[in-house]
């Protein structure tokens, strides 16, 4: 059948297409974007036999309800996600990190992420998408990427250009670790803060605010006192940078962040903990632990080896 597509019966809260993101555009004001949780993005693609950097559907909290129209297709869901499948009017509990075959009229209903934020739905084959600067990733703030840079909406169709149907089921045993401790390297303006402020930053708990999205994560909790200047001359930002504006509440830059900012940088989240950071849901506690550069590099290498190891098990 040529005409294979998913009909979006319910889009979910923040459902977008994402891939590896875009490089080398910071200088014109365009951030990386891309899948927030990189490991789960890679595992999803590997499970359905796609190239590792293929586009996937990313959702936050509540995911989409999709009806498949076509012949046969293989799908998987990664993350910590509660979902159901409706196959020939039989309802089945879905399990993450397993593949499922859908036939014409079957539905997948992604109810919610479980005490986490992002989940991924991968489809074996090629989704019909527009690419900008080599990536389909949707940045809703700048309206860049596929779907005119907007999140997916009800009644839309997701057209599949090419299906690589795989009859063999694949699965891995993988448990997303839930952590509250996030390792952080001191930022370039660490000394802008009072001794008490520095102590608070590394010793006290913060709560992830509801005002968090793909651009940034805001934190509530004890205030961090600035003793030099609450503004700096605007300069570049990166994902993981923790800025503290005048109100003393830290903001962590995430994948769709503005490229330039003028608040002092108290720290930067170590790359090894980024995937886990983005999964900490609003209302949850977070605590920062200081780490130096060489430890951060070593831990990232181990994390990368672990990811490669998981991929090779599939």
């Amino acid at each position, binding site marked *: 059948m040529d005409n294979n597509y998913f009909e979006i019966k319910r889009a979910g809260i923040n459902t977008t297409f994402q891939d590896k993101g875009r490089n080398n555009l910071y200088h014109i004001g365009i951030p990386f974007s891309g899948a927030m949780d990189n490991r789960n993005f890679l595992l999803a693609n590997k499970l359905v036999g796609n190239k590792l950097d293929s586009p996937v559907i990313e959702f936050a909290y509540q995911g989409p309800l999709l009806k498949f129209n076509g012949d046969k297709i293989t799908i998987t869901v990664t993350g910590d996600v509660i979902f159901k499948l409706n196959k020939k009017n039989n309802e089945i509990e879905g399990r993450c990190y397993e593949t499922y075959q859908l036939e014409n009229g079957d539905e997948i209903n992604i109810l919610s992420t479980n005490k986490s934020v992002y989940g991924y739905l991968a489809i074996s084959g090629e989704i019909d998408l527009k690419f900008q600067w080599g990536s389909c990733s949707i940045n809703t703030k700048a309206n860049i990427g596929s779907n005119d840079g907007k999140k997916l909406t009800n009644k839309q169709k997701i057209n599949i250009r090419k299906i690589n149907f795989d009859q063999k089921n694949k699965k891995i045993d993988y448990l997303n670790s839930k952590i509250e401790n996030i390792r952080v390297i001191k930022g370039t303006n660490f000394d802008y803060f009072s001794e008490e402020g520095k102590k608070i930053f590394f010793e006290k708990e913060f709560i992830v605010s509801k005002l968090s999205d793909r651009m940034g994560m805001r934190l509530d909790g004890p205030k961090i006192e600035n003793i030099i200047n609450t503004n700096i001359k605007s*300069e*570049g930002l990166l994902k993981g940078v923790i800025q503290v504006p005048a109100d003393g509440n830290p903001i962590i830059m995430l994948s769709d962040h503005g490229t330039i900012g003028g608040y002092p940088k108290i720290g930067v989240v170590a790359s090894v903990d980024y995937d886990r950071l983005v999964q900490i849901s609003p209302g949850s506690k977070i605590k920062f632990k200081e780490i130096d550069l060489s430890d951060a590099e070593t831990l990232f290498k181990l994390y990368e080896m672990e990811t490669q190891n998981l991929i090779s098990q599939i």
Partner: protein
Amino acid sequence: MIKNISNLGDAALYCDFGTEVNKDINSKVIKFFETIREKNIEGINNLTPSYNKLIISFDLKITNFKKIKEIVENIEIKETQKLNSKKIEIPVCCDSSFSLDIERLEKKLNLDREQILEVFFKKEFFCYMTGFIAGMPFLGDLEEKMRVQRLETPRVKVPKGSIGLTEQFANIYTFESPGGWNIIGNTPLNVFDITKEKQPNLINPGDKVKFKRISMEEYKDLHG
């Protein structure tokens, strides 16, 4: 030329060119940025030049701070290297429907509308950097008597094409966005064109910009 190189997290170099904001320091940043960009150094995946800093991001899977630092420290920039610089004219209409904050500026600067616009349109601006939102140019320097702080409460939506002033800088909102700059007019030009992947920005760091005052009729003609 770079005063100090440190790490910003585990996947970026933070190159400090000084604390001042002036064309001299900024031109050095831009030359460095362009030189590194042309070299296509393996592992570097982003460069962010700003007033007096250059942030070099790299892929930690491919390289690390020590390796990139060594490469960057050995890059020579000749003092004679010229800045790539274009001259760009931006038409701006200051009809009262566009100049949302002109009355605030009149009060804060103690100048009248025509005096403010006269100074603004006479000036040749220099593009220090682009960013925050895609393609937004930061243009300087306004003279002392024209400098104001941003709005106490930022607007939730600043219209696309708005020309804003804050401190020594003017900017252009390349698309509708929240923002707190003092808006004096609007340009019908598409300053950031998403369909041009190679060169989406009309204005780049190092370029010289002059604003040209246009009437509402001309604005509508240019807007198409």
